[in-house]
């Protein structure tokens, strides 16, 4: 976006994705009293000691740095939930488990700034790394099934950072495939696509085309 290193495909840097992720709401427990904050994105507060409040992540990190609150980790970040997610990811070949869109960025920010607020932090960290690895390999294996007829790719439940990593590659690969496919003589390939589409729509799942 801001960095136009490749003029063809606008690329979000990782820092920009993190910036967008900081808008997510998270729960904190303040240890001081403060008046309500009237911000452009919304009103937060009033903050009373030991009463939990929902604030955006950037505000939570800023307060935490000044020692004014403790951050409560989100509920998906417990060891049991993550273990279950990891098992499910390993079991299913194509589907991705439902994780928050910005789970990578949120977890990294919390590890950096709220180390003491997360129970079993090493376990949580290694679980998230494993989940990320498994998902990335799944993305790669599902990207292998391109062919000339693929005009768009839809993957369900993929997180922001994972999408950002594969975005330039997928865009260029699709373009190359389209270019080469236009060389082939016109076959009656379109009737093939119709029954596939109807199948996928009826299942309610959005899967990769061209499989």
């Amino acid at each position, binding site marked *: 976006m801001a960095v136009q*290193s*490749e003029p063809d*495909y606008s*690329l979000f*840097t*990782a*820092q920009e994705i*993190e910036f967008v992720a900081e808008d997510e709401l998270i729960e904190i427990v303040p240890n001081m009293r403060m008046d309500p904050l009237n911000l452009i994105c919304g009103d937060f507060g009033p903050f009373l000691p030991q009463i939990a409040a929902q604030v955006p992540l950037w505000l939570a990190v800023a307060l935490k740095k000044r020692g004014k609150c403790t951050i409560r980790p989100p509920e998906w970040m417990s060891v049991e939930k993550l273990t279950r997610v990891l098992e499910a990811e390993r079991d299913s070949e194509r589907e991705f488990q439902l994780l928050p869109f910005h789970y990578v960025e949120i977890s*990294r920010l919390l590890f*950096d700034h709220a180390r003491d607020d997360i129970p079993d932090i090493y376990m949580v960290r290694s679980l998230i790394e494993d989940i990320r690895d498994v998902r*990335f390999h799944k993305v*790669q294996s599902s*990207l*292998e099934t*391109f*062919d*000339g007829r693929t005009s768009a790719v839809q993957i369900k439940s993929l997180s922001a*950072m994972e999408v*950002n*990593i*594969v*975005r*330039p*590659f997928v865009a*260029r*690969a699709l373009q*190359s*495939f389209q*270019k*080469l*496919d236009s*060389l*082939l*003589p016109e076959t009656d390939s379109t009737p093939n696509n119709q029954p596939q589409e109807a199948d996928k729509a009826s299942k309610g799942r959005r899967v990769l085309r061209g499989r």
Partner: protein
Amino acid sequence: MASYYDIDDIIAEEEPVSVIFQKPANGVGIDPSAEKNCVDQGSKVELPFWLANELCQRNAVSVLVPACFDEKTRLEIQADPACVDLRSRSPYFYEFGCKMVPIVGDRTLGFLLFSAFRSRYKEVLTKAHTASHVAAPKILSRLTKEEVNLYEAAQSSVAAFKKWRVGGRRFQPASVLGRKRRSEE
């Protein structure tokens, strides 16, 4: 697709192509080895692609399949597409092939390009995202320009992500401030 100012496009069109002249051409010294200044009908000459394209549209020449798409390459591609060194044939293998398809009278060229790309694409995909810098040169020397583009796009985004993950200072002082200022007095 093909843009006028695209450097890759311009260089791809420089590839040599053998043509057979259908009409005699006077006053052109295209063939450097010939003494006379004109080209006879039926003689075979090597021209750059952009020239051959124009002449072909005027029906002055007929184009033969260039050497990089010959039988040997086809057999190699059918055997194992991922290991074929396409760069030694031509670094613009795919672009050049795409331009050749409308003018050369060979129907199978399109299929060849497409199947080669599809099989090599899988290799590029896996290697690009996971390989470290050490393993890079081996496969890079076999890829055409287009595939190298793909490869580098993936490499750079994975590297950027890893760098971000390690962490570090979010805000860095601008390099301008680092220089010592002369005192204004």
